[in-house]
């Protein structure tokens, strides 16, 4: 069941759009903000609230790579794998992350602390290689400062 907070935030978004369906991406974002991911039950609840079928909501949810339809860790690491970062040797960053966390892309550490994902260009190519952890951008990376970055997140 959606919480009252989630419902009122979604209702607020409905003021800006002429049809209820148009708020579905906002609704998915709101739910994910509260729960870190969007479950099947959440999809059905959003569908009921916006007058859509659950499949319709899911077709939107699964299209966008930053809506998570599986549980993720407390922190999500997005590693830029696009061209400028690749030229500047991002593979060493990827390798270091995988060694330190003992997981591959798409996986979550057993303690639920980190999920590791590749991400297209983060738009900071003059400071490649780059990655994001949750809201935070890290640039001009080298293998040596990765451990330090991870230590900031509980």
């Amino acid at each position: 069941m959606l919480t009252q907070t989630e419902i009122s935030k979604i209702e607020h978004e409905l003021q800006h759009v002429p049809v209820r369906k148009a708020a579905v991406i906002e609704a998915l974002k709101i739910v994910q903000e509260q729960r870190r991911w969007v479950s099947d039950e959440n999809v059905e609840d959003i569908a009921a609230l916006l007058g859509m079928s659950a499949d319709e909501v899911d077709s939107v949810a699964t299209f966008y790579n930053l809506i998570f339809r599986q549980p993720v860790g407390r922190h999500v690491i997005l590693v830029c794998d696009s061209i400028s970062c690749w030229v500047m040797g991002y593979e060493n960053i990827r390798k270091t992350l995988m060694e330190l966390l003992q997981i591959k892309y798409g996986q979550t550490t057993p303690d639920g602390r980190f999920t590791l994902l590749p991400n297209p260009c983060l738009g900071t190519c003059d400071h490649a290689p780059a990655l994001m952890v949750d809201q935070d951008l890290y640039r001009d990376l080298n293998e040596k400062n990765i451990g330090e970055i991870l230590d900031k997140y509980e």
Partner: protein
Amino acid sequence: MEAPLTSDIQPGLSLDLRAYEALGGYQALRKALQQMTPQEVTALIKESNLRGRGGAGFSTGMKWSFVPMNVKGPKYLIANADEMEPGTFKDRWLLEGNPHQLIEGMILSAYAIQANISFVFLRWAYKEAAVVIRKALSEAYAAGYLGNNILGKDFSLEMHLHTGVGRYMCGEETALLNSLEGKRAVPRAKPPFPQISGLFGHPTIVNNVETLSFIPHIVNKGAAWFQSLSRTGDGGTKIYGVSGRVNKPGAWELPMGVTMRELLEDYAGGMQNGYRFRGALPGGASTDFLTSDHLDTPMDFTAVAAAGSRLGTGTMVVLDDQTCPVGFVHNLEHFFAQESCGFCTPCREGLPWTEKILYALEQGHGTEEDLVQLEMHTHLLGPGNTFCALAPGAMEPLQSALKYFREDFEQHVHEKKCPYGNHTH
């Protein structure tokens, strides 16, 4: 040398309303609302020869002039801030550094087409920009620059920030509209063009952040001034960028038409020690390679096109002599295959195929036939065969790599390995 878009931006800081006003901000809005008709604003922008800075380079004034002026119902103005072209980092600078310049540009543009609702479509990753824009929007509302009867005139505009949830496709104008409507970001058939039938079926203009940020300056200083900033027929300054193995990667606002050589040597500080220049994508991932033969090409829409590529976003990605061109293109095609929306068959099927062939070449499993297949794909996925510009854009670096770096492709086949061997995928 004038740099109207960026000379007021301090590194690491964002201009708030008071600072922006102290620098003359919102004077263009006063001028337009008090002295100019919407048609006069459009005519001025047309005369300035401002061309869209998102990649396509279409005349901004011309685009606006297609919006019907005497229709009932809402019209929309949208800032495309979904900067996601790999190798591109120019709009981030404007969004984080001077949000009111964009907002004023949007209000003026909305006035020109008589739109009453506007959105900033911002990509997910630009967290700092989201904070800055939210604050700027509330300042602009509080000061009466947004809302009902702006500056006491008969013009009202609401403006909202929409933050995306990923996908390169959202930068495509019609896919962006679908996404704003809460749908999958797949492209729409054109015609009808968004200027006639866009967001929720109403007339809509979508312009790039850099394009919109120019509008207040042109309204203040005129079309002739804007033209005079440029070295060539394409008006204005341009934000250029360079990334890759150069000494000082970065972005600079320079007169339109500086050469590739000036960018590389005078601004980016030349190649890093031990690396030599082999080629560059002049304007992001979906532009054709240019090589050392093209270094004296002026970086404007016309000259870069004549050299066989596109100015695109104007942010250059450099290929050095120690990076494998096949691996470089593989990285690009991986991106495009992943970001294809899957809506039309050539793109959905063809891009993963090219990615797999390039991977096979890199692994030493490539054959002569693979090179023929790659060549064929550059035609099959070229302009006119797909629903939008994603696949044709993806073919630009591939077709030019096959042309300029042919010997590298051949070497992968004959030696049954990547001769560079220093990058994994």
